[in-house]
Structure formats: C-alpha cells, structure tokens
C-alpha cells in the first residue's frame, strides 16, 4: 500500500459539518517508555458524526483513544475538545466534560451488579438523572433490565458489551468512544451492536468508533481514518474509503 493513495484530506468533508470540530487531535505523539506509539496523529470528529478508526494490530487505535480519554497524555501535540485544550486533563475530569467510553475488553466491574455498573457509569451525575438514564439504557437494552441484579461477571459476552455501552451512555457523553465493540461476538450479536450504535447516534450522540471489523465500521460510520504504525495513512468519507483499493485489500479482505 502506498501513501500516495491518500484521497480527500479530512477537511474535505468538513464543508458539510459547519464550524469547529467537537473533538480534534493535532499532531499527537505519545510514548510507552521509549516506544514511539503515536507518531503525529491528527484527526477531527464533528458533532453528530460517527467516525471510525481502522487499522491493523498495533496501528495505535486504542492508543489514540487513550490519548483522547486522558489515560495517556501526549508528549507533543494537542487534544482539543469543544475547542478547549484537554491534552493534560486527567481522565476522570474528561468524563465530566462529556467524553464517555466503552473501553476495549469491556472492563465490566464483574463483582458489581448490572445496575451498579450502570450507576458507576453515571458516577459524575446526580442520583435523579442516574435513575432516569438507567431507564433509558434499559429501554435500549431490555436484556440488561432482566439481569439488573446479577453480578456483571455472570453476563455473557454480548450482554457485557451491551452493559459496557450502556454504562458509557450513563454519563450523557457528548462524544462516545467505542473500542472494539464487536470483538469476540457472534455475527448476529455484531449486527445488533452496530444497529444500536446507529440508534445511539441517531439520538444525538457523537461517536468515535475503533474497529478491527473494518467493513462493519465503514458501513455505520460517516467518515473514517486508517491508521498504520502510529500514523494516519488515509482519511475520508466512509463510502469513499469502502471503495478505496488499498482499504479493500488490506482491511476488507478483498483481493
């Protein structure tokens, strides 16, 4: 694959999306010890978009999310959220600011009940709002209502993923970071999860989706970025990316 195949720069599609991006990364570099993990990532997510990051193992997708959610602070470059530089804001404050995340591997609190997991998701909000939002999540995932009193660890993989997404929604995020929501799920469940992602977006939540299942991701997303060894090698409208030859070869399994 070659970098010459870069098509439309990210700004190209921005005409349709007025004004300032909700979330923006400007030339972000991060390190793990001496390992230069992100080598200058720039991307932007506009309000009401679904944006996806795709790429191979170790391309830096999850690391990019960590740079956004505050678990990892960039050594160079900036993360802007709603126009404000949040590069060095600790993770727990970013939740309050409106960045919610369903982390990779779900990270359900296995010895808290489903309800308690959801309550943890709404940790930054008032009890009354939490009670309302629990209902909202239950409406979205009826399965969770049935299992409300069960420990998180007893749920099946799909249920845990629902719980992880529901939990992330509890903080009423302006932008929802989803890390590999389809990982390890059966094809039917994968379909369900992506349907729900669409629905959440339709209800007005901006989504940044990290997926290894590139086809599904590009199907739901408006735009996408292709990451490779810590760099953005390709960016554009999802539809365009789906048609891109390199993407098709490398990520969609077509020859």
């Amino acid at each position, binding site marked *: 694959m070659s970098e010459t195949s870069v098509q439309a720069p990210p700004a190209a599609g921005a005409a349709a999306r007025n004004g300032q991006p909700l979330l923006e990364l400007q030339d972000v570099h991060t390190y793990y010890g001496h390992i230069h993990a992100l080598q200058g990532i720039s991307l932007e997510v506009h309000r009401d978009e679904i944006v996806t990051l795709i790429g191979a193992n170790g391309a830096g997708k999850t690391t990019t999310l960590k740079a956004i959610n505050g678990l990892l602070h960039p050594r160079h470059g900036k993360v802007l959220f709603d126009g404000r530089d949040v590069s060095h804001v600790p993770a727990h404050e970013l*939740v309050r600011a409106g960045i919610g995340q369903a982390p990779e591997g779900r*990270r359900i609190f*296995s010895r808290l009940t489903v309800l308690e997991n959801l309550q943890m998701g709404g*940790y930054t909000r008032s009890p009354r709002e939490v009670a309302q939002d629990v209902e909202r999540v239950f409406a979205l995932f009826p399965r969770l209502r049935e299992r409300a009193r069960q420990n998180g*660890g007893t749920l099946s993989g799909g249920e845990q993923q629902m719980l992880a997404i529901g939990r992330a929604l509890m*903080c009423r995020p302006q932008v929802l970071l989803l890390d590999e929501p389809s990982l390890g799920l059966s094809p039917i469940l994968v379909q369900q999860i992506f349907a729900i992602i669409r629905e959440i977006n339709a209800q007005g939540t901006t989504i940044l989706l990290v997926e290894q299942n590139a086809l599904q991701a590009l199907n739901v997303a408006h735009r996408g970025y292709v990451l490779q060894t810590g760099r953005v090698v390709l960016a554009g409208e999802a539809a365009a990316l789906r048609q891109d030859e390199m993407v098709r070869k490398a990520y969609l399994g077509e020859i």
Partner: protein
Amino acid sequence: MQTQRSIRLPARLDGSQLPFVAAIAGSLVVAYALVGPQQFSNFLTIGAVYALIALGYTMVYGIIELINFAHGDVFMVGSFVALWILSGPLGLHGSIDNPALLAVVLVGLFLVTMLILGALGIFIERFAYRPLRNAPRLAPLITAIGVSFILQNIMQAFFGPSPVNSPQIFTLNARFDVAGASIGYLNVFIVAVAVALMIALQLFVGRTRLGRAMRSTAQDREAAELMGVDINLTIAFTFFIGSALAGAAGIVWVLYFGYAVFNQGFYAGLFAFTAAVLGGIGNTTGAALGGFVIGFLQVAAAQYGYSRWSEVAIFGVLVLVLVFRPTGLLGQQLGERA
C-alpha cells in the same frame, strides 16, 4: 491491569447467604460451649477490637494492594488521641455516672477521634504511599515500615515510653448477670459499637455512590477512572475510612483497657493483619470474621492453659486455613475473571 481485587460484601441477605449465616451461628454456639459465657464475652470484646483494625487493613489492601504495616500504629495514635481528649480538654478523671452525659461524651469522642485519625490516614497516604503508586510493589511496604517507626517515635516523644493511664469513663462494676456470668455493660457497648460500625461500613460500601466508586476502583482502577472516578480522591477516602475505624478501635481500647502505650500497635496490628488474611484479604466481612476468630483463639488458649502458645495457635490456624483455603475463609476464588 492488576489481578482482581475487591472489597466485597454480601449486598443483602438472600438465600445464598443462609449457609454462611448458619455457619457463623453454629461457630458461635460451639465457641460458647467451649469457653463458657464469661469467656464468650471476653472474646467478643477483644475480637471486636481486632476486627475494627482488620477492616482498615483489608480495605487498604483491597484498593491498592498494600500491606499497610503502619496501620497498627495508626490505631495506637487513635488510642492516644482518645486518651488525650478525655484527660486533656475534657479533664476527666474517673467514671461518668450520668448516662446522658456519658452518651454525649462518647458520641463526641468517637466523632472527633475518628475525624482526626481519618485525616492522619489521608496525610500518610498522600506523602508516603501516593508518590510510590507506580513504584515496585515493595517500595511502599518499606515506607510503611518507616511510617510505623515515625508514628511510634513521635508518640513516645509526647507521651513517654511507659503505659499512660486514661480515665475510664465507664463504671467498671456496672455489670449484669446472665447465664451465670457477670457481663460488663462496657463489653456490651464495645461489641455493639463494633458491630454498628461494621454494618455502617457494609451499607456505605454496598449502597452509596462513593462506596461503589471504592469497589470499582478496587476491581479495575482504569475502568473506574473512565467512569469519572477520581482515583486519588477515592484512595484517599479509603484511607480515611480505614484509619477512622482504626481510631474507633483505639478509643475502644482505652475505654476497655484504660491505658495507651506507644508500641501497642505492633502486636495488635499484627493480629489484625492476620485476621484480615484469615478472612480473605480485601473482604470486609472476612476481616471482621477473622478478628473474632483470633480473639477466640487467644481466649481459648488462656482458658485451657496454653497462653504461652497462643501466638503459635493463631499462626498455626492461619497456615492451616490457607493451606486448605488459599484465599482465606471468605476470600474470592481465583480465576474468577475471564
């Protein structure tokens, strides 16, 4: 991420806990039969002290996996603070016979002492442990030993190396007879306070927002952070509660034994730590249970003329329990996390 740890407790009593409750009740009956009513009261009293200290050990361990060896000394400071309040500002010398006044003094004593001790816990965490949170595991263990030395030496400088008597505000001969035993109201009070504090802790950890935050942080610190939990604050708060409970144990100690000495925290802390491990470290119910088990072993050793061997009995039981139940009496089983 770290291996799974948690502060666990039964959220509410349901059918699954019946065997547990039955086992506890059965053990109490056996204990009663073995040592008789008078010793039964003795063991519940000393067990309550160990249990209160053990709770702090187990909570701190649950959340940051630190064996906080200074915790026994925090308890010791609690005794001195209580002693000082009683004999200093309050200027008391003997017992308080007016029950209403006694109640007021006790409530005030517990509130003030526990607050001061909680603050001490936060202070210690902030300066001795937090800077080492990402350091090798044993580094904070060594600072804990250092803190232990510091606390002991400071108290020794203030109060001297000998036991200092405190006013015993309970009339010692206020007792009642039951089942052929003479039980002090003080004993009842101590067990009641300890049980009340333990229930309050269970409710707090089990039912409140902050309690959930503590449990989440114990299970998965990073995920909790992504929920908006301020980890530093939560850990500091855990130290606050653990130290406040140690403070309560310190108060109970001076009320019951009527003295404090700068090195009392060493063995009390050692036994309480053993209690926490016996119960399953990280598990608050287990810690309380362990405290009573150790109290019982001490009393039984005394009853049967083996007081010289009581330490051997305690640690022997500990080794046996761990050989057969490697995570303690109520510890979570390994491999629970997928």
